[in-house]
């Protein structure tokens, strides 16, 4: 479903038909793909869009550390396993204890998700290109779809009070940066919002030595 919407929204907002499909194969990380297309079709520099997507994908590092035992040591299998690392394949692997079960869960989720995600994007891009191509994207309200998608990805990630502070700080920093930074960069400096989530917690810890 997410893949389908990604393909459709991307093409309908002016991206070439092959772009969402190619992104899904070579990047294969939902939120960063949405962000790249949204920023690029919105007129921001492609490098800034890539940077923003990369910052979002920094979470792959702890995920990869968590499932390191299922990633083969060498060879093309190692590269393939790395490419199949996503929030989902990690989420299905992390809670399992048995090494054999962990490996099976990782590969099954990874391969299945890769297939479904790319199929969804392909179908979505086709729909976007045929059904929606003749209409003005702003008449369809498609410009609201990108932030709506990002919101749907953000909310489940906000679980603690520190997360909430981080999100609010990120939002405030980004809005404040809009008049002074090139288009697209404000979301990158929103990363500074992390400091808000941590600073307060560190203060709390310090208060009870």
């Amino acid at each position, binding site marked *: 479903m997410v893949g389908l919407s990604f393909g459709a929204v991307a093409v309908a907002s002016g991206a070439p038909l092959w772009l969402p499909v190619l992104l899904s194969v070579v990047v294969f990380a939902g939120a960063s793909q949405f962000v790249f297309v949204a920023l690029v079709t919105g007129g921001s520099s492609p*490098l800034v869009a890539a940077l923003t997507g990369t910052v979002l994908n920094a979470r792959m590092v702890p995920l990869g550390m968590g499932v390191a035992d299922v990633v083969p040591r060498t060879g093309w299998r190692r590269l393939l396993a790395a490419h199949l690392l996503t929030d989902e394949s990690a989420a299905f692997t992390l809670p399992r204890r048995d090494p054999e079960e962990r490996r099976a869960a990782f590969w099954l989720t990874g391969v299945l998700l890769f297939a479904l995600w790319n199929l969804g994007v392909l179908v979505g891009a086709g729909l976007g290109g045929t059904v929606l191509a003749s209409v003005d994207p702003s008449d369809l309200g498609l410009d609201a779809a990108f932030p709506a998608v990002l919101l749907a990805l953000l909310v489940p990630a906000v679980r603690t009070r520190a997360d909430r502070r981080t999100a609010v700080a990120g939002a405030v920093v980004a809005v404040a940066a809009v008049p002074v930074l090139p288009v697209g960069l404000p979301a990158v400096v929103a990363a500074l919002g992390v400091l808000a989530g941590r600073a307060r917690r560190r203060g709390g810890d310090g208060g009870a030595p």
Partner: protein
Amino acid sequence: MTWGTEHWVGLGVLAVATFALRLLGPWLAARVGGGARAGSTDALLAGLAVAVLAGLVVTQALFDGREAAGWARPLGVVVAGVLVWRRAPFLAVVLAAAATTALLRLLGLP
């Protein structure tokens, strides 16, 4: 939109950087191991995604580049927010946001 060399570069940077980050996790785990250190890095990087996503949501909802985006789009995103909060399915959230914005524009709101 017109697709040029700098777009290819951007796409390449995103793809290569993402792949490198995916390889970095298992590589680090083999060298420094898991443990408490991984826990704190984990929290930091998860926080990074939260902050950047939040920044993207507001800037994409409120602005067109540097210009204000008008009212219809932010209101569509607010509707999406309510639906996400009520745990509506993903597709419903996206369609409701677009439909709200489209309807408000039809009614003449910028």
